[in-house]
């Protein structure tokens, strides 16, 4: 092949497009940069084709089937699609790259030999949020509301949160938001007003975030007690309320750095050359920056695999090796011109997540700023949970091919 | 009978039209007729002969039944009207009373009548006056003016439909089976009303009727339709005397009217066209 085919099951349409677009733009622009600047990776161009899913699982599967012939990786881009293609990839032997989303037990590389949710998973996020809250004192006896999309994605962290609630003695109050009620959350916020939780943790996506944030402002919920997962930290959602949203937080494993050299290069070689669909404002944002990091992770895996196998035209299995042997260090980030945009992390055959950790970001009224040092998840606290959930999955889907060579330590 | 009211000015002219339903069903196979100004023209023929279709073709109501005029032309006062929409035709004074009492079921009888005046611009008073006129023609309607038309009896609905047409102060009325389902008294009464409207207001009528007997008594001119073709036409008085018409449409044979009970053999319909 004269190029490496790394399709992206993108969604720039549908009810979740608002949050999808900046991410897709970031991803695409980084790959374009590599193609423009270096002629691809290791001399081969990257064919970063997008297949539109509209966040619909059905279309997602169609895209997967359509692209899997040539693809060396699949990026399903929604927890629903990920769950659906997960068993298929295990048979088709194509790695899934799901940065920051998907099924948390995918961290177990022994069971999920083809799936990667680098650099951090949802359980990591939940753990870090709880850690952050603990910084202000014990959580014992406190009440934490968990406002989430009533959808596999929103329910993902529940097992861990329940476990932490039992351990740390806080009361967990799950509040679901239906897909059709995303824009009309007054009932949920009335409940929050009634229950007076000390904190609200949000697992929202798409239009739900904007709805929740405006509703929080309306009901005068103290913004500083309101924390979202990394998908609930989109600049545009906060701009809706502007100043009034100040204090809102979001955990994130990425941070935009408009001054970073890579950004300058993208600006010059991609944006100014008219090869980008993004715009200046969007490029400052958290999500665009995160998109860039995602593509960087894929690019690094490809590069690693190329070097290891001594061939530029790697295949899916070789890429899996690359994804299992990522080692993104401070130095490497520096070289890539991306210092500070993602915490350093590394993966292994057994650890498909990397558990990079992240920062707590806070909306200051006009943009997100870092308000914490690097938080790292306490993975040991729930590695059992990961292992047992992964094992359950394997049993339910027997016969399930596993990577027996891996030692089970994370 | 009423030949005095007849003028020779042609109001409506239908030239050799062909109508196809649903792209395949050919119903009218070349129908031509003329309606004289100030006259009453009757369109006669058995079931399915194409009377309703002819009237709908004239008033441009075929479209919504997936029918279309594929050949021929229709002229009203010398102008082609085929491509007008029905509303425009009403504005020119042509209104149709449809077969089967199409009333607005949820509107009251009075509101039904008022919709007839929709295209009129001559003010409330005039409309009010015409409403009274309609009520004087059909006192039964006045009694039921406040009931929803959907709940009135068949005959009442028929009166409502005719009254509604008169409310538009038409120049020409296309009446489709006005006598259907009406009590005998009322049939005469409706034809009397047609006659008096025709004589007093100079309104021309084209009426499709099964009740040949009555129709030919009140009409000036008649056309007989069979299977989508005009098979006979002429002044009503002449048609009444035609032996074929007598036998097949008036139910009279040489020895006068027979009892329905005595018709012991089925009549074989005589076909003008094979």
């Amino acid at each position, binding site marked *: 092949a004269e190029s490496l085919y790394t399709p992206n099951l993108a969604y*720039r*349409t*549908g*009810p*979740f*497009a*608002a949050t*999808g*677009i900046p991410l897709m733009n970031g991803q695409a622009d980084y790959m374009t940069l590599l193609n423009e600047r270096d002629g691809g990776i290791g001399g081969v161009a990257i064919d970063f084709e997008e297949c539109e899913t509209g966040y619909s699982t059905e279309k997602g599967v169609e895209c997967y089937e359509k692209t899997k012939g040539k693809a060396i990786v699949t990026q399903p881009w929604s927890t629903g699609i990920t769950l659906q293609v997960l068993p298929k990839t295990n048979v088709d032997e194509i790695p899934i790259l799901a940065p920051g989303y998907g099924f948390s037990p995918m961290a177990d590389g022994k069971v999920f030999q083809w799936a990667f949710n680098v650099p951090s998973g949802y359980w990591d996020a939940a753990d870090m949020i709880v850690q952050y809250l603990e910084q202000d004192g014990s959580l014992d006896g406190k009440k934490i509301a968990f406002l989430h999309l*009533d959808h596999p994605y929103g329910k993902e962290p529940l097992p861990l949160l329940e476990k932490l609630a039992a351990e740390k003695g806080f009361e967990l109050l799950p509040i*679901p*938001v*239906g*897909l*059709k*009620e*995303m*824009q*009309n959350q*007054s*009932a949920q916020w*009335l*409940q929050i*007003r*009634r229950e007076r939780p000390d904190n609200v943790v949000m697992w929202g996506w*798409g*239009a739900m975030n*904007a*709805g929740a944030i*405006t509703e929080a402002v*309306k*009901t005068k919920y103290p913004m500083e007690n309101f924390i979202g997962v990394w998908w609930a930290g989109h600049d545009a*959602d906060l*701009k*809706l309320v502007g100043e009034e949203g100040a204090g809102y937080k979001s955990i994130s494993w990425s941070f935009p750095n408009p001054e970073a050299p890579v950004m300058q290069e993208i600006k010059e070689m991609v944006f100014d050359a008219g090869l980008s669909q993004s715009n200046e404002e969007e490029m400052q944002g958290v999500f665009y920056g995160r998109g860039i990091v995602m593509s960087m992770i894929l690019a690094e895996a490809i590069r690693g695999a190329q070097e290891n196998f001594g061939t530029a035209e790697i295949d899916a299995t070789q890429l899996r090796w690359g994804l299992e042997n990522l080692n993104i260090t401070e130095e490497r980030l520096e070289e890539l011109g991306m210092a500070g945009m993602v915490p350093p992390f590394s993966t292994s055959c057994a650890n498909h997540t990397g558990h990079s950790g992240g920062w707590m970001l806070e909306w200051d009224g006009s943009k997100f700023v870092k308000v914490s040092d690097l938080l790292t998840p306490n993975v040991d606290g729930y590695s059992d949970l990961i292992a047992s959930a992964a094992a359950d999955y394997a049993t339910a889907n027997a016969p399930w091919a596993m990577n027996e060579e891996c030692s089970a330590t994370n | 009978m009423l030949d005095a009211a007849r003028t020779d000015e042609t109001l409506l002219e239908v030239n050799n039209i062909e109508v196809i339903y649903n792209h395949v069903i050919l119903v009218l196979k070349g129908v031509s007729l003329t309606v004289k100004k100030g006259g009453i023209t009757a369109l006669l023929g058995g079931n399915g002969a194409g009377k309703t279709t002819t009237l709908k073709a004239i008033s441009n*109501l075929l*479209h*919504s*039944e*997936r029918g279309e005029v594929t050949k021929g032309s229709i002229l009203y006062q010398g102008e082609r009207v085929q491509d007008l*929409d*029905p*509303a*425009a035709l*009403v*504005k020119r004074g042509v*209104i149709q*009373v*449809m077969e089967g009492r*199409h*009333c*607005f079921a*949820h*509107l009251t009888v009075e*509101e039904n009548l008022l*919709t007839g005046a*929709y*295209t009129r611009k001559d003010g409330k008073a005039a409309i009010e006056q015409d409403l009274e006129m309609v009520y004087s023609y059909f006192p039964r309607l006045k009694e039921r003016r406040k009931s929803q038309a959907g709940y009135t009896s068949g005959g009442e609905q028929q009166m409502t439909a005719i009254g509604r*047409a008169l409310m*538009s102060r038409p120049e020409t009325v296309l009446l489709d089976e006005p006598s259907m389902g009406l009590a005998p008294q009322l049939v005469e009464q409706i034809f009397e009303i047609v006659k008096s409207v025709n004589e007093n207001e100079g309104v021309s009528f084209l009426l499709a009727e099964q009740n040949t007997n009555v129709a030919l008594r009140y009409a000036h001119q008649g056309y007989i339709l069979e299977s989508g073709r005009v098979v006979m036409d002429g002044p009503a008085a002449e048609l009444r005397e035609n032996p074929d018409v007598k036998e097949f449409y008036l139910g009279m044979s040489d020895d006068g009217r027979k009892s329905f009970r005595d018709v012991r053999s089925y009549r074989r319909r005589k076909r003008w066209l094979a």
Partner: protein
Amino acid sequence: MFADIFINPWVDMVEAPDFLMQVLWEGLVSGILYALIALGFVLIFRSSRIFNFAQGIMVVFAALTLVGLFAMGIPAWISVGLTLVVMFVLAVTIERVVLRPLVGQPDIILFMATIGITLFLIGFGETIFGGENKVMITEELGIPTGDTVLEPFGGLLILQHLDITVVVVATLLVLALLAFLNYTQMGRAIRALGDDHQAALSVGISLQTIWVLVWFIAGIIALVTGIAWGARAGVSFALEVIAYKALPVLMLGGLESITGAIVGGLMIGILEKLFEIYWGQPLLGGNTETWFAFVLALIVLLFRPQGLFGERIIERV
């Protein structure tokens, strides 16, 4: 269990009357917002028996057009005017391209056609406006923001000025529509048209004119609705799903009734909020708002098959 269902909720209500008032107010406002969408439906249904599924997307489309025009640097009120022009063009186009060729077809076919319109508008709208969430130009339109905080019973009741405005505007809109339908010649024609297309045609009521008019009015209502919803939750295609919320409102109130739309909207808005807060969340795991309205409407229909204010179904042979 018994107490949870039959006693505790009432106790909760009495114990925190300010909270109850807030719940009722939120219910009222959502109810009005549902009713606004339902109004557009009703008008079109009345005049053509078309169950216009596209009303929801028309709301999005109107709001996006407004915001989009404003983003091009056109002053807010001129944008509103231009949006109305766009809605008019839309009405004309729909009438010409979709409705006219389908005159006289069964209800379900027309219903389907409006779903076709919905899809088309989604694709068309996203092509033009993109999928990003946009901010409604609330302040630029001079719509009051901010809130009034009352303290009944020593508690707390927050009234958004925006919501108050919506309630007032919606009320005016409804009164105007009622007057239009019941006291004008055009209004009568609209009602007649709903009963019998053919007969309406035969008395000279022009389908074209009335349909364009009705769809245009529905477009205006859509714009008002779009501004109201957009100011609360931003403008994006996700708004389209709120159209589903109008369905039970319509059925409960009666498909042909303006009054029904309002009463149905308020009933559903308030009751579903009360149910969710006092029963749904504590007992059923929450999120009952997704179905409560439908089940409520269903129960009411079992007793009144034409809805509370709908026209009696005339059954005769």
